[in-house]
């Protein structure tokens, strides 16, 4: 038997995807749902398909694993033309995640995850080992969740199991259709962060359909903006789409606050922080005030013995004090190094100082982030976006006419 061959997981290396002039027409409809799209999806990257509802982004995604058969065109995974191979066999080699996970309610978590490996004929011991491995990858304790049924899980947990199931046979390609659409905003944010973490580890080729532009900016290495008929309006990095939207359609889709959205692209640890005058409890306030004045600063940061910020008195407050107290100010504006600049800006707008304290590991103080630092980061991102030009290929057969003035209705 060739069982020993099929046991081998497929080459973990991710593979690129190429849609070559793919068209989907439905009978009885004058306009094609997807109109001659040519789209290159680079290996190991996350590509986000965004656009208004009904623009054909989901149809495009489902043609990659041929859940929807294309009317015309070729589909290539890596170097292999998969346009006419057996669809079921093709889908077993790709992960597929839908909204709310699409778990089978009559099967346990373990049974759901082991479906594809079973179909591929993996031996039992290897499957059960793989199930535990995957549950750990998506931050669910195997001992607790393996034998649960989907109805015994929260929405976020179901979604995690959905991702684990899609990754079960270690496919090089992962397709996700509005994966985080059905969970609350806080859970969504956490799942997005986890997906980023998983991708750092696995480097799959991931295609995600979403209508949420913020999600696209957060997750995507590349973003494809579609208009009706899956016409590619812009295919570029999040930075460039934000800095240089191709036209009014993209601008409208980005919505207001493109500058603010750029802030979600950068993290506090990526920018240069301002220094601060440090004080300690028990010191004479006058000494600290003098240091603050010498440095030309407005405030001093008071740290405890483990370098964690306690309070952030201004010159005026220092002038009123005799010695520095060890009391903890509960309303200190503090952000972690992993926070996005967007979060940092939020925090500093609330504080009186127009700045925020940045803490690193174990809440140790590392510096001060100011509005000026953030302005600088926005400028840099824009400059970098202007210089980048290596976007993958993405066109429609009739894209030349579309680009003409007045052509884009």
């Amino acid at each position: 038997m060739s069982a020993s061959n099929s046991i081998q997981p497929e080459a973990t290396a991710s593979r690129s995807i190429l849609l070559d002039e793919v068209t989907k027409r439905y009978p009885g409809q004058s306009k094609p749902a997807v109109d001659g799209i040519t789209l290159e999806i680079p290996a190991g990257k996350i590509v986000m398909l965004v656009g208004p509802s009904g623009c054909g982004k989901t149809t495009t995604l489902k043609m990659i694993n041929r859940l929807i058969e294309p009317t015309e065109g070729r589909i290539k995974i890596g170097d292999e033309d998969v346009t006419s191979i057996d669809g079921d066999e093709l889908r077993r080699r790709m992960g597929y995640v839908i909204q709310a996970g699409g778990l089978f309610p009559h099967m346990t978590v373990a049974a759901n995850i082991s479906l594809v490996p079973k179909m591929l004929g993996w031996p039992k011991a290897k499957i059960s080992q793989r199930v535990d491995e995957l549950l750990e990858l998506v931050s669910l304790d195997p001992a607790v969740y393996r034998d649960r049924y989907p109805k015994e899980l929260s929405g976020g947990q179901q979604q995690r199991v959905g991702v684990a199931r899609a990754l079960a046979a270690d496919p090089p390609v992962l397709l996700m259709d509005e994966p985080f659409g059905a969970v609350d905003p806080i859970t969504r944010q956490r799942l997005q962060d986890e997906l980023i973490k998983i991708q750092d580890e696995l480097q799959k080729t991931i295609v995600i359909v979403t209508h949420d532009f913020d999600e696209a900016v957060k997750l995507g290495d590349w973003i494809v903006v579609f208009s009706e008929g899956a016409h590619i309006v812009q295919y570029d990095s999040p930075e460039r789409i934000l800095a240089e939207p191709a036209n009014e359609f993209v601008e409208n889709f980005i919505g207001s606050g493109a500058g603010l959205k750029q802030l979600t692209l950068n993290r506090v640890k990526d920018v240069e922080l301002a220094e601060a005058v440090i004080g300690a409890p028990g010191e004479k306030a006058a000494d600290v005030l003098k240091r603050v004045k010498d440095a030309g600063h407005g405030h001093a940061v008071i740290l405890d013995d483990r370098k964690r910020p306690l309070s952030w008195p201004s010159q005026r407050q220092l002038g009123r004090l005799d010695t520095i107290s060890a009391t903890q100010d509960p309303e200190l504006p503090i952000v972690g190094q992993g926070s996005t600049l967007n979060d940092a800006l939020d925090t500093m707008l609330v504080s009186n100082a127009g700045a925020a304290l940045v803490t690193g590991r174990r809440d140790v103080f590392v510096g001060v982030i100011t509005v000026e630092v953030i302005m600088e980061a926005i400028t840099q991102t824009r400059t970098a976006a202007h210089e980048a030009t290596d976007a993958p290929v993405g066109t429609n057969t009739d894209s030349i006419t579309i680009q003409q003035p007045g052509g884009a209705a």
Partner: protein
Amino acid sequence: MLWSFLVDRWDQIWFAAWQHFSLVVQSLILAIVISLLIAFLVYRSPRLSSVANGVSAVGLTIPSFALIGILIAPLGFGVAPSVVVVTFFAALPILRNAVVGLSNIDQSIVESARGVGMSRLRTLLTIELPLAWPIILTGVRISAQMVMGIAAVAAYALGPGLGGFIFSGLSRLGGANSLESVVVGVVGVVILAFILDLLLVGLGRLTISRGIRVSK
């Protein structure tokens, strides 16, 4: 009087009851197979589904007595017309529930089954059928109750079962032991129906996944 009737004819009653039960269970199994096959063929088309539902609604209005009478001509007396009639009526509620159960499955679940690379047949057998099974089984229970009574009519075609006691009692009404005979037939049918229902509930416990069982 009833007691002595029971004691005198215990072997006969026991045998008839067993035959009755066996007729119903075997016809029920046949009905499940037939109606599932039909449901598999029609559930994906809304038009065919409504035809199937219409047939099962109209079919249930046919008087069983008339149907078995008509069937005697082509099939003769005995087991054959009994099995056909009982199976026919048993299939109708099962078919209806099977079509409803299969077509009401959340399409995203079916799509996700196709998305992980399951073939149409595999999706049907391992995903759709188990998910529709509780509703199908409810149909089976309704059928079982209904055809327990219908099987008694089989006696008209000289078929097996407890119907013989009812018919012979009714035809001699007023005569010796006539009422006892009818009572034994009717009560026997009711008891058998109760036992079969218990067995089907047990079957449900064994075959319905804990993940989709309605928790009390």
